[in-house]
């Protein structure tokens, strides 16, 4: 799979590390949320069949984190 690094261009997937689902915001005040809300943030992630917003980091390249949208069926990658 080729992954488009926004800084380095298309590179082989072996140069990257997967960072899981994007768009999971860190609770602004963790101390104020209840156990269930906190557990949902820590342990639960979407796992769709189809388009998914993901985080990747170009570990063997520029070491920058970025987001992209990948189709989990076809591996088609589109900008976030």
């Amino acid at each position: 799979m080729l992954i488009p690094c926004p800084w380095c261009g298309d590179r082989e997937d072996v140069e990257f590390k997967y960072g899981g689902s994007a768009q999971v915001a860190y609770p602004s005040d963790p101390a104020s949320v209840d156990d269930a809300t906190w557990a949902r943030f820590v342990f639960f992630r979407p796992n769709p069949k189809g388009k998914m917003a993901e985080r990747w980091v170009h570990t063997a390249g520029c070491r920058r984190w970025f987001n992209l949208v990948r189709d989990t069926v076809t591996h088609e990658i589109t900008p976030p």
Partner: protein
Amino acid sequence: MSRLASGGRIDRSRPLSFRFNGTDYRGYAGDTLASALLANDVGVVAQGVTYGRPRGIFTAGVEEPNALVHVGNDTMLRATQVELVDGLEAVGLNGRGRLSLDSPSAVAGSPISPSPSGGGQGGGSDRYDKIYAHCEVLVIGGGRAGITAALDAAQTGDRVILVDEQAELGGRLLGAGWNDWLADSIAKLESAPDVRLLTRATAFGHYDQNLVLIAERLPSGGSLRQVRAKRVVLATGAHERPLIFANNDRPGIMLAGAARTYVNRYGIAPGKRAVIFTNNDSTDFVAADLKRAGITVEAIVDVRAGEAVVDTLAWQGGGLRGVMIAPLTGDGQRREVQCDLLCVSGGFNPTLHLFSQAQGRLRYEEGLACFVPDAAPPNVEVVGAAAGDLGGRGQGTIMPYWVVPSNGREWSTHFVDLERDVTVADVRRALRAGMRSVEHVKRFTTIGTGTDQGKTAGINETAIIAAQLGQPVGAVGVTTFRPPYVPVSFGLMAGRNRGDLFDPIRVTAIHPWHVANGAVFENVGQWKRPWYFPREGEEIEAAVLRECRAAREGVALMDASTLGKIDIQGPDASEFLNRIYTNAFDNLKVGFCRYGLMCTADGMVFDDGVVMHLEPDRWLATTTTGGAAAVLDWMEEWLQTAWPDLKVRLTSVTDHWSDVAVVGPRSRDVVRALFPGLDPSRESFPFMAIREGETGGIPVRLHRITFSGELAYELWTPSWYGLALWEAVMAVGQPLGITPYGTETMHVLRAEKGYIICGQETDGTVTPQDLGMSWIVSKKKAFIGQRSHRRTDAMRPDRKHLVGLLPVNGDVILPEGAQLILEPNGAAPAKMVGHVTSSYRSAALGHTFALAMLQSGRERVGTTVYAPLNGHAVAATVTDPIFYDKENVRRDS
């Protein structure tokens, strides 16, 4: 000899000798092992793997199911693809023994000797490389369609790679006499500037976005070529498939196109008297070419004319003696025809393995009686026979026909998969057992699971299932095609990544000294670390006890350079550290260090290390040796994704520094001698302080930190000076008996003090509170994982706590990983309440001890737990995890 007097693409001026299963033969340059064996009348090359029936060469190419051989270091080679070279030694693959008509003793278990110049040089000297390439157009298949596509692409000036599995380009044309067109086209391609021609190279895997893996065969070894192409043109041709009838596996029966290839390309008469059995027009060419070669065509049996070969007859040795022919209606007269060659054609299957691997979809084409490409993946194009254009094969009209009925007899000699020895009877059994999907029948019968991947069997399997179930062939479909298209050697996959090059080896600047002084090494991640330094005749246990005693009673030194080191700079660095570590750093003065612990968001301990405050906006964090890369990644992730507003920059400086730990009550004397201008007294150089110094021109940063619990100094110098510093310390310490020690002693010393090692005491399920380290968890500031420490689960009273264990028998070392139970003789299954994480023999304590994670461990101090080992329970007393100098008197002395 069956070699024709003239003809073929072999070079009769270059005779070659070779050996097969211990017998010497001769052939010519341009032969394959298979063609040379046929030329020498070696009809039987293998035995069926299950039933032991003799088998002959069935094809002239990659789809060969019978003639599998071992040459040099290479195995699972198809004799139809092994080029003959002088001195080649091949051994038939011994599934369950091999048979040779000439020398039946040269069979199973015959020693495999390396070939002098064949597939390998022997002795593991084959060299494999990996080569990466990019191109605009990758054409796979060098037959008519592929060459045409490459010529077209070359017009545009694009980078073109044309790859073909055979020794020369041409594909089917090599056996069909298109020599002028071929020579002309290849000359054009060779003169095109950006066209690369790869022969002896099999494209075996087609992955996302047109990554294609190619196995290129070289005289000794090969290259794994990984090509990324904008566009892939699949010109992979078509494989002929057989018709299925009783006793259809005898030597002398081969695909009709193969017989034609042996005549035209190799100048061989694969028989003297031939029968042709067909359901399509392609055999017209076969009959003509056989006749031209002087082979008598005794009969052409055409199902379209209402006749079929219903059975075959054999000589004693297995070779074909004749065929039984009967009308399709089943009630007519059977007639026998004598022959030694039966050429079979059931039509052609477009070769769509790569197409399917790349997620292309197939559909069944009734008129062609085969599966053809339907929806192609992006930037993949299929041309020629692979696309269903079977005109070049001469298929013409075809009557879809698959299996000749057995006239009431068993189906157990109607072979579907020759390599797997699977018959129609097996398919029928699978269906009777309730299998319906072609995938299930495949697994039940093993059709298509051989090294040939069912290239001559798969579609016939589908057709048999369809007929039995009364379904259309297209509805049954085909099994999933997976890489590799042909067997690929592990050597090719490994390339140069073997032996010392398997994984990077990291050594410190002081490593040469360790080697010269007899260190025994252990691997820590990619690092080679001294494990212990044995003296003459000393075993590990005695060495470690001696090293521990030196550190506790005199002075010792250790190479700690492998610690991970991260340089942290920026005005927000202290705020950043506050968020990363459980404890606070914004109150740490310049010139001092602090031990820090970090957790993941789930509140579990992740890593630890000492953080140095070097300048107002500059810090240096150390990590565990194995965790260095992960911690840097972790810090970068938070910095970039959660806190982009923080002005902080991170750099790995692990290799920049050498770290010599000088440990023990006499360490101060060593430091005093090395740095006369520096006062190492407790008052002026207190615990956790940093000082700058210089000794003999070596710049040194000194840290009063300890991982042993003793008075200790860590001396850092740019790694360029590392070895010099180590030698200087050794020289000054000599009169004091300074003793080098390794990681084993380091482990014992730290465990005696109850210091954890992340990844040994912790495993991703351990909180700081579990470790009894609540003192390091700040309540005043926020940090990663903090909220998780208040989860109900994190506060359960029965969580596992870090405790110490003293075996009741102080000579017994509990194995690390041993489970702990409460009842030594209770009913099974015993309830497991914990496990041993670290376990050693202690010189200072005079007996063995261990650290363990134990449920409600802190409440069990003073009680006895048991480790069930080899059928008996070893008793140990639960203690506090700190065994030595609990008051830190020695550390702070």
